């Protein structure tokens, strides 16, 4: 199956709040790593930080914020406030992304971004995540964590077991058509296609 984007202490029964708090900690650690490194090491650490911020923001926006809006009465306002904080941080992030990490303005701008992002993460944890957890069934929170992990998975590094026959069928005709016929036949056989 797909490889994970990062390692870490994830568990199959981890809920989405635990997962996102763990990502917040990774973000804190990466800010410290960028600050401590120099030259190429700083460039690489900053690249990892930017990627994590983009992935984390996407997962929150795709899975967590829509659920929070529905989960508790002031959900819409709480999420809108978080999105406003994020918008401000994203502008600083865009500015930094166009800057060389050796630029004298880089570190002061990075520190400003860190303060904004950590304050935002703190608000999310206190005002959004805890209330989401209080008002959502535990199994749904675990499913949301699975969704976040799926949205961050890397491509597999092993071939599909049926690769050889698939390669041959491309020669026989468009693979998609073969696939559709097979699928239809199996669905009919299993009584799923009325």
């Amino acid at each position: 199956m797909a490889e994970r984007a990062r390692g870490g202490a994830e568990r199959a029964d981890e809920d989405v709040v635990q997962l996102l708090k763990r990502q917040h900690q990774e973000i804190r650690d990466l800010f410290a790593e960028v600050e401590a490194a120099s030259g190429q090491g700083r460039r690489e650490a900053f690249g990892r930080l930017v990627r994590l911020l983009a992935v984390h923001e996407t997962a929150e926006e795709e899975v967590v914020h829509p659920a929070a809006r529905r989960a508790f009465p002031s959900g819409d306002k709480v999420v809108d406030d978080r999105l406003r904080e994020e918008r401000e941080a994203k502008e600083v992030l865009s500015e930094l992304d166009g800057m060389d990490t050796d630029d004298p303005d880089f570190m002061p701008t990075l520190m400003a971004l860190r303060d904004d992002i950590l304050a935002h993460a703190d608000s999310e944890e206190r005002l959004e995540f805890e209330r989401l957890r209080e008002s959502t069934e535990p199994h749904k929170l675990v499913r949301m964590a699975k969704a976040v992990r799926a949205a961050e998975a890397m491509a597999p590094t092993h071939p599909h077991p049926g690769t050889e026959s698939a390669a041959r069928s491309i020669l026989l005709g468009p693979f998609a058509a073969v696939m559709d016929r097979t699928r239809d036949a199996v669905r009919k056989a299993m009584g799923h296609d009325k």
Partner: protein
Amino acid sequence: MSADLTPLIAATTQWLTRAYAPGDDGALGPALAEAQARQAVTAAAWLRYPTELDAALVMISGPGGSGRLDWLTGADCAAPGAPDEAEHAWRTWVDEVVASWAVCLLTDPDLADATAAAVADCEHAFGLPVRFRRVTAPDERDRRAAPLLRHPDLVAPLAALHRADLLERLGTDHVRAA
């Protein structure tokens, strides 16, 4: 939300982001390009394989791989000499139809909205209100990060491969839902 389609979604996303790499020298552009490609691929995959059974079947039979896509786009895989093992491996998980539908969604807001609506209640969503915002309402940063992937002319050959099937599926689903 099913993790069953995850390898197909991850590999097809990787194929799209490599074939239409933005050439951005920053770190943010590629990350945002990947995020929106993945949302488009996820929505397309859920539409093509809407049930757990559909997902299980395609994972057994295999999604077909990127062979025809590499040939169509002249992607690096077509270079002389066999691709190395790791490079070959992930390409076997690429789904040609899902890739084609995904670029249709990235270049046509109406299809993006219709697809997001069609998959909102599918089995993969598990009742969660999932939102593919980078596809249905991309902001200026999203558009700037994926100029090639969102360019209708550049993705036209890929979109044309299975666009008719996408239209048919959306039409059929609307009728079925009514």
